[in-house]
């Protein structure tokens, strides 16, 4: 029953994304409209894929670091992506894909650094070091980025921050195809880790005694979640709160078993982002809000409500 509702919600969010928008497209002309097919449909699909990926990545990370406040962007990836993007502009790298590729590579570099930090003191990925390292690398890259922007001349560099703030403006069938081909692999890795993630909630020692290959699971979950997040940043900038809040909302109905939680987080995250993007495009039309702002504005009250519920439970 609840799955049916979730699927309906997801379909509804997608439908609204296609039907609504700042450019008035009458219902009768939807099927023929170039705006709908070239812009709205790919954008809705991309929003869904990115939102879903962030939801699953967030759920996986929260289980991995055993911290319910973990968000995919706590890992320093957004800082790396921002630095990559700003460098691409400052170095006048050309090409329509220069920014996303640079951002993706920047995110991967940050991922590598944090991973390396997480291995300090032994072969085990220590969740606390992952979190602290992520925050540190994030702050470090943000500082370098700000320095470059303030020293350099171009106003373009300041616009890079707007890009980083999250937007699905770059959505096209090209980017949808790219994400649709890329995302399934890390998603499958995360889904396959569902049971070990359940065990991990008991602590790494107990999980190991129950038969989980703890080190392998940690590595895979961390890498898969990070790769999903890196791709999300590359195509749509930093969209906060989806990865943090969606898993918690999903847990309210589906509980903590990752076998159902992860798919629910995917559908829920996709629906949320598609819906938020529709709001971003229509609320102040003809202008557009950065979608990262909308998810925060929606996410914070939801989060506050959840916190209240938590402290009661």
């Amino acid at each position, binding site marked *: 029953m609840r799955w049916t509702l979730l699927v309906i919600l997801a379909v509804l969010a997608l439908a609204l994304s296609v039907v609504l928008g*700042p450019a008035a497209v009458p219902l009768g002309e939807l099927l023929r409209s170039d705006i709908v097919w070239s*812009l709205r449909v790919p954008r809705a699909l991309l929003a869904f894929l990115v939102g879903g990926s962030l939801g699953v990545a967030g759920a996986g990370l929260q289980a991995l670091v055993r911290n319910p406040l973990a968000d995919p962007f706590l890992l320093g990836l957004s800082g790396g992506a921002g630095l990559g993007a700003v460098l691409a502009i400052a170095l006048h790298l050309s090409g329509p894909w220069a920014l996303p590729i640079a951002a993706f590579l920047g995110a991967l570099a940050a991922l590598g650094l944090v991973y390396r930090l997480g291995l300090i003191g032994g072969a085990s990925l220590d969740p606390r070091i992952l979190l602290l390292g992520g925050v540190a690398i994030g702050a470090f890259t943000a500082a370098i980025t700000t320095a470059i922007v303030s020293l350099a001349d171009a106003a373009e560099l300041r616009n890079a921050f707007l890009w980083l703030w999250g937007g699905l403006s770059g959505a*096209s*069938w090209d980017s949808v195809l790219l994400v649709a081909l890329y995302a399934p692999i890390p998603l499958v890795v995360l889904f396959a880790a569902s049971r070990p993630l359940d065990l991990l909630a008991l602590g790494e020692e107990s999980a190991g005694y129950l038969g989980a290959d703890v080190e392998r699971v940690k590595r895979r979950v961390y890498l898969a979640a990070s790769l999903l997040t890196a791709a999300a940043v590359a195509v749509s900038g930093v969209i906060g709160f989806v990865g943090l809040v969606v898993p918690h909302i999903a847990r309210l109905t589906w509980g903590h078993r990752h076998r159902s939680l992860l798919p629910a987080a995917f559908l829920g995250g996709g629906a949320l982002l598609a819906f938020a993007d529709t709001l971003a*495009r229509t609320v102040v039309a003809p202008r*557009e809000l950065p979608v990262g702002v909308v998810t925060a504005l929606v996410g914070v009250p939801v989060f506050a409500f959840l916190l209240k519920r938590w402290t009661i439970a």
Partner: protein
Amino acid sequence: MARRPDLVVLYNAGPNVTAAKQLERAGIQTVLIDLNRLEDLGPAARTLGRLTGRNEQAESLAMALDSTAGRPPPPSTTSLAFVVWDNPPIIIGHGSYLDQLATQAGARNVFGDVAAPSAQVSLETIVARNPEWIAVLSDSAAPPAFAKRREWRAVRAVREGHFLLLPGSLFGRPGLRSGEAIQQLRARLAR
């Protein structure tokens, strides 16, 4: 400060205000000038003339600049949108300098209804408003990188390659050559 100029002229913008105060404290004469729109040119010339003691030259210059600014715009024969950034799309709205140039050159800014000097809009809005030209501040002769992006090709002007590539030195800010800028724009639009 080491060079001890007689006068420092700064655009009246955020960080410059603080800089101006610092220079004044160091005993260097500083003036902040508003130079955002065509109408600011005349007063700016007069202010500089007053400060440098060249009032007559300044006055004749100011009158020429005023007439450029005050000229009634020709009827618009074409439409355009200024795209400052592509992802997210940032356009120039009503009241900014570029918008004024366009009007003076006989082109309607399709985003003239946006009150802010610049604003983020959805790509589909640009497509729906269908400007005949996409104007970009660019010093190169090549079309902007976003012209190759699939989602931008939904915009007719992008598909047809109707780009106005405006060099920053001439079109970036109001200046002595504003009149020239308007002429050039008008000529390009006529092609």
